[in-house]
């Protein structure tokens, strides 16, 4: 028996009634030595274990049901496919560039009033928002207008509310990239209200929670943002949506970082690393590298931090993500200064400032300028601070921000010239620039006089 293998009959008897085997000891000895027979026994045992399970018996009825889709589903799928294809055909010339889109009649021409056009616009905005933010904003604004025009009987209520939810959700997403968080919060609430009126909405609501959490994070409403990050992460895990699960993790890590819980942030970002590298979606991986780099920097693991920042830069360069790249470059500048490479760090800060200004990201520009000014003052380079404030004031004024960013810079300029530019004064200005992205119309108000001291 040792040379050959057990026959199937013997295996079956061995599994179900071993006591019926006259040569039981020999069979057991053979199984101890023969891997192939052992594997067959294990697989038959595993199969027969399922014989006892009620679910196996309950599955019997399913075997009789049709396996092909019913005609009404096939027709529905075809209708939507045609609607999407028509929308793409109509939109292709308009989506060539921002100018063509802006001058089109998409918001008023009823030919565009279809759910397919809404889907197509949302899809297009998702694709372009990292590179062409303003264009994406026009696209989602059009999607919202069209979605709100959809009416029965052309569409069922579920279709209409879904289209409205999709359009507002993407609009909120784009708005938060522009830094208009108040409008983004309003938009995401509209999306949530619409999705709540649809069936089978768990996934859509998880996506809403992610965007809402992100907006609240940016508005520094950390206590409200953290549970949303955790809620959406749990939802995406359930749907096996690794990419969005990573984004929910990035949100959680970001909140922990901003609340100075750096060790916890490192743990969260590290947990994302392998899934993000396995998933290999460049922009998402870039965000993980950048988050981990920033958190490591705060726990003084500067060598590893620099390594992750460089990886993030490479990815952002490759994918043309200018603003994200500039934020990482800013982090690297701070890292350089922290490591004592002050001249190099200062140069990098100036480059980041120019890049933010060139792309109209005024709140980021203001924050970099404050950091740069603080570092210059540390070296007693007052004249340079004054020059920086003057140049920046001119740029902000030219951008129509006389009573806002320009006023904040003028205030810093005066505080510096009077020799009262204390950390408290910087913090006041920093808080203002953070809020500027949330409230673009917010005027700058100087702190009470005793605060300057």
């Amino acid at each position, binding site marked *: 028996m040792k040379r050959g293998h057990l026959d*199937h009959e013997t295996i*079956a*008897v061995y599994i*179900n*009634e071993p006591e019926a085997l006259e040569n039981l000891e020999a069979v057991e000895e053979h199984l101890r030595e023969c891997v192939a027979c052992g594997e067959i026994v294990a697989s*038959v045992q595993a*199969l*027969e274990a*399922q*014989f*006892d*399970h*009620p*679910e*196996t*018996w*309950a*599955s*019997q*009825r*399913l*075997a*009789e*049901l049709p*396996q*092909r*889709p*019913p005609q009404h*589903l096939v027709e*529905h*799928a075809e209708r*939507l*496919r045609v609607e*999407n*294809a028509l*929308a*793409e055909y109509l939109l292709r010339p308009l989506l*060539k560039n921002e100018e063509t889109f802006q001058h089109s009649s998409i918001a008023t021409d009823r030919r565009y009033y279809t*759910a397919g056009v809404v*889907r197509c616009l949302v*899809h*297009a905005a*998702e*694709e372009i928002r990292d590179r062409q933010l303003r264009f994406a904003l026009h696209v989602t604004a059009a999607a919202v207008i069209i979605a709100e025009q959809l009416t029965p009987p052309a569409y069922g209520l579920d*279709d209409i509310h*879904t289209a409205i939810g*999709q359009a507002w959700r993407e609009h909120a997403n784009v708005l938060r990239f522009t830094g208009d968080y108040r409008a983004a919060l309003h938009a995401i609430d509209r999306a949530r209200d619409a999705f709540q009126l649809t*069936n*089978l909405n*768990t*996934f859509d609501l998880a*996506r809403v929670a992610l965007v809402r959490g992100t907006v609240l994070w940016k508005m520094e409403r950390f206590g409200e943002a953290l549970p949303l990050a955790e809620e959406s992460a*749990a939802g995406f*895990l*359930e*749907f*096996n*949506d*690794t990419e*969005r699960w990573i984004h929910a993790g990035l949100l959680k890590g970001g909140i922990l970082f901003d609340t100075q819980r750096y060790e916890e942030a490192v743990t969260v970002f590290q947990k994302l690393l392998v899934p993000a590298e396995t998933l290999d979606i460049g922009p998402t991986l870039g965000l993980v590298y950048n988050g981990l780099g920033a958190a490591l920097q705060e726990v003084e693991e500067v060598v590893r931090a620099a390594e992750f920042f460089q990886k993030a830069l490479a990815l952002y360069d490759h994918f043309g993500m200018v603003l994200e790249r500039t934020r990482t470059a800013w982090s690297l500048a701070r890292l350089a200064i922290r490591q004592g490479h002050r001249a190099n760090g200062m140069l990098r800060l100036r480059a980041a400032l120019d890049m933010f200004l060139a792309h109209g990201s005024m709140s980021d520009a203001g924050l970099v300028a404050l950091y740069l000014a603080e570092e210059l003052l540390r070296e007693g380079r007052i004249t340079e601070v004054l020059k920086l404030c003057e140049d920046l004031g001119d740029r902000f004024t030219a951008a129509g921000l006389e009573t806002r960013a320009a006023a904040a810079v003028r205030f810093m300029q005066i505080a510096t010239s009077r020799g009262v530019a204390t950390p408290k004064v910087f913090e006041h200005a920093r808080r203002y620039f953070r809020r500027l992205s949330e409230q673009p119309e917010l005027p700058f108000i100087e702190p009470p006089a005793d605060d300057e001291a």
Partner: protein
Amino acid sequence: MPDQPASTPAEPFETLYERMISILRFVSHVRFGVPLADAEDIVHGAFVKYIRDYSGVRDPGSWLVTVVANASRNYLRDNRKETALPFNAERIWADPNASRLADVIATRLALGAAFRKLDAGCREVLNRFHERGESTEAIAHALGTTSGYVQLRLHLCRKRVRAIYLDLTRVRS
């Protein structure tokens, strides 16, 4: 304009339907105990939802399973008087071994189909022994025969189920 047109799903609808339909029915009807006709509505509702917005879905199979599981859970909550929640109704797909769970479901589905193909006599003997847990003596008593006869029938019927199961799974793979 995006590279991947929104009108082109990664997997054609009919292929996805045929790949997932039995698993989704299993989740709703077998696992959650939703009556078959209502389970069918839930499953088809999930497909309608998917067709409408597949561009946001990364993993259609898992997405459909989770939508159906959530809808079945809601169904049971809404119909609490008629149907009790199964012991494992909460978050079954959050199981870290979800892929193994999918294998188990596939095995149970194929075995269920194999049982269906058995003759009535074989099915009864196996059902009494395996599902209801009756002893060979009790089965013999109920059928008016000997336990030796029942043991032999069990042996032969298991063998037949295994053969049918192998046939079914071989065709599928």
